[in-house]
């Protein structure tokens, strides 16, 4: 694996490149690209041209008719997605997006400017699909499709996290994430993907979740948390699995079931549902909220999304509550309805505790746990002791997809400010719809890509450093499982001393439960403020 440079070694070079962009090839040096998708995983997903290949090699073993495949694929996408044709035609190269990309800010590579990233595809579109491009060629910004272009696509479409910050600033609203999505779709036609995307997607096909947790293991893990909660406050929660007739199906990313610190957030979900007596069930089949199909192609995304609704139908629930996941909400909120919907076998979500009707989920029949909890708090249904989070000084990272994909800004802050006494937002141009990406989204959260992850995460880390230095913030909260996994090394790298948490871990800390014993620690077994001297057993 590539050695990760020290922070002081990540010098930025914003100098002009020596040659024109069309004549500059990407440098496949370790740390800037991800391992290629393994043939066995492509086979599981029934993706074409599965083979062993390696990005630094000269020969990528492309199928002999690869050019034809790309042109046909692009033609197909242009016919299917009107948005793509508009994005290809409408850009005036004003440059408003140029310095908005975290990868450009952190790497200084001009091809990470969203305008130029899009131009990588647009130049081929012009040459093949526009008269001006066919006649005028380079003068009209057109170029021939060559193997080097395909390599460049692979390099830069897997250096974009599809976070859509650039699109907020585009006067035409060009969605560069959708351009990256199409770019990856075309690459997939040639068997070119990364293993950190197709591996989880293949696991999801086979075992119901990205980690490949089998049903009995999934149950075992949740039951481990049941014991852990009892060790903290003496309350024994009783989750159920695959229970037909439950009112609600709950689905969260499998990262929450397996990886710290997401596991503490999962304990928060269990505690909350128990305390309000929610009639809900887990599923060991639809055991994944995330959708790495979104990072593969439309077809795979559709299949993985369909699983959640198929399970809701099989179990006969009224609706679905989704956990603290990022890109799941982009898929549910923006694509589900026309892709797999309408989910007319489900009901419009109504909170059984408050009676609130979630009109916003009228078509998807799926609500976010944070809006569900915010509604409980607003209606005074939870007993909370925010002082149990007094050892934390919290800020909030708007996860890109819930923020820009569904306008989810206020509910998380409302919940946090009701369960914590110390909260400080980061500067306005780094949060809410302008939030900076974690730098590792869209399936790029793999270790061999660590240098680029640290570069791409620099703007986010910088904003955390600001509130860390100014207000003493020591805890970064977020509502996405990739965030919880990747912000931890990002903080250790750029802002040591800042931890990472999910919002429902904070809720679990503050929640006063019926029959609980006196709490001396938080869910992590760390002493509460003022309880540092009490001897705590390890939990």
């Amino acid at each position, binding site marked *: 694996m590539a050695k990760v440079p020290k922070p002081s070694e990540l010098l930025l070079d914003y100098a002009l490149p020596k040659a024109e962009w069309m004549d500059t090839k990407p440098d496949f040096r370790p740390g800037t690209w991800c391992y290629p998708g393994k043939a066995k995983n492509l086979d599981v997903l029934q993706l074409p041209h599965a083979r062993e290949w390696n990005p630094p090699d000269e020969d990528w073993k492309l199928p002999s008719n690869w050019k034809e495949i790309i042109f046909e694929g692009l033609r197909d996408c242009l016919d299917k997605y009107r948005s793509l044709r508009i994005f290809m035609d409408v850009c005036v190269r004003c440059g408003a997006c140029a310095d908005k990309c975290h990868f450009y800010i952190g790497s200084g590579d001009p091809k990470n400017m969203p305008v130029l990233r899009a131009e990588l595809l647009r130049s081929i579109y012009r040459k093949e699909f526009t008269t001006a491009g066919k006649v005028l060629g380079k003068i009209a910004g057109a170029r021939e499709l060559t193997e080097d272009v395909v390599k460049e696509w692979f390099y830069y479409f897997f250096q974009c996290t599809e976070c859509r910050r650039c699109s907020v600033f585009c006067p035409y609203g060009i969605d560069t994430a959708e351009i990256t999505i199409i770019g990856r779709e075309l690459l997939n036609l040639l068997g070119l993907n990364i293993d950190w995307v197709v591996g989880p997607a293949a696991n999801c096909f086979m075992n119901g979740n990205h980690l490949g947790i089998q049903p009995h293991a999934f149950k075992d893990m949740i039951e481990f948390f049941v014991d852990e909660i009892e060790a903290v406050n003496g309350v024994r929660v009783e989750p159920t699995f695959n229970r037909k007739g439950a009112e609600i199906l709950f689905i969260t*990313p499998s990262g929450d079931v397996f990886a710290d610190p997401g596991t503490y957030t999962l304990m928060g979900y269990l505690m909350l549902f128990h305390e309000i007596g929610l009639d809900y069930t887990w599923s060991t089949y639809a055991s994944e909220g995330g959708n790495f199909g979104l990072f593969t192609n439309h077809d795979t995304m559709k299949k993985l999304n369909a699983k959640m609704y198929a399970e809701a139908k099989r179990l006969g629930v009224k609706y679905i509550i989704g956990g603290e996941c990022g890109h799941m909400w982009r898929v549910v909120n923006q694509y589900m309805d026309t892709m797999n919907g309408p989910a007319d076998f489900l009901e419009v979500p109504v909170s059984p505790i408050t009676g609130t009707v979630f009109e916003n989920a009228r078509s998807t029949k799926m609500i976010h746990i944070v809006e569900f909890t915010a509604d409980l708090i607003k209606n005074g249904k939870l007993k909370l002791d925010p002082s149990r989070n007094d050892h934390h000084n919290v800020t909030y990272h708007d996860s890109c997809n819930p923020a820009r994909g569904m306008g989810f800004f206020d509910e998380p802050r409302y919940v946090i400010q009701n369960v914590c006494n110390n909260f400080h937002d980061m500067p306005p141009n780094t949060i809410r719809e302008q939030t900076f990406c974690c730098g590792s989204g869209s399936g790029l959260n793999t270790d061999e890509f660590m240098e680029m992850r640290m570069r791409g995460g620099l703007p986010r880390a910088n904003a955390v450093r600001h509130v860390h230095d100014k207000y003493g913030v020591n805890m970064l909260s977020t509502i996405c499982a990739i965030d919880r996994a990747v912000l931890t090394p990002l903080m250790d790298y750029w802002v040591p001393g800042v931890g990472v948490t999910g919002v429902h871990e904070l809720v679990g800390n503050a929640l006063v439960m019926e029959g609980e014993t006196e709490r001396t620690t938080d869910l992590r077994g760390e002493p509460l403020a003022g309880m540092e001297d009490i001897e705590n057993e390890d939990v």
Partner: protein
Amino acid sequence: MATVEFKGKSFDVDEDGFISSFDQWNPEWVEYVKASEGISELTEEHWKVIHVLQDYYRKHGIAPMVRILTKVTGYKLKYIYELFPSGPGKGACKMAGLPKPTGCV
């Protein structure tokens, strides 16, 4: 995929030096990996961690989460890092022949 030969045994390894299948694991593998993992001598405590990982994997088809590993072994995470400098996932799982977990981790 690269192949490693060591003491008469052969292992298929991936880019990060993990063996491609748990079926290929044998004690020679641990001996082969220890030097690159910065471990000078294998102790009973190393083996305890390796065996806990393998027992869980045989039963559940996946590595145990770190919290289960620390609970079952009774070793704090910090101590596991002392035993395996690259950590429970990259170091201990690699030596035990378990695949890397993937997804939002």
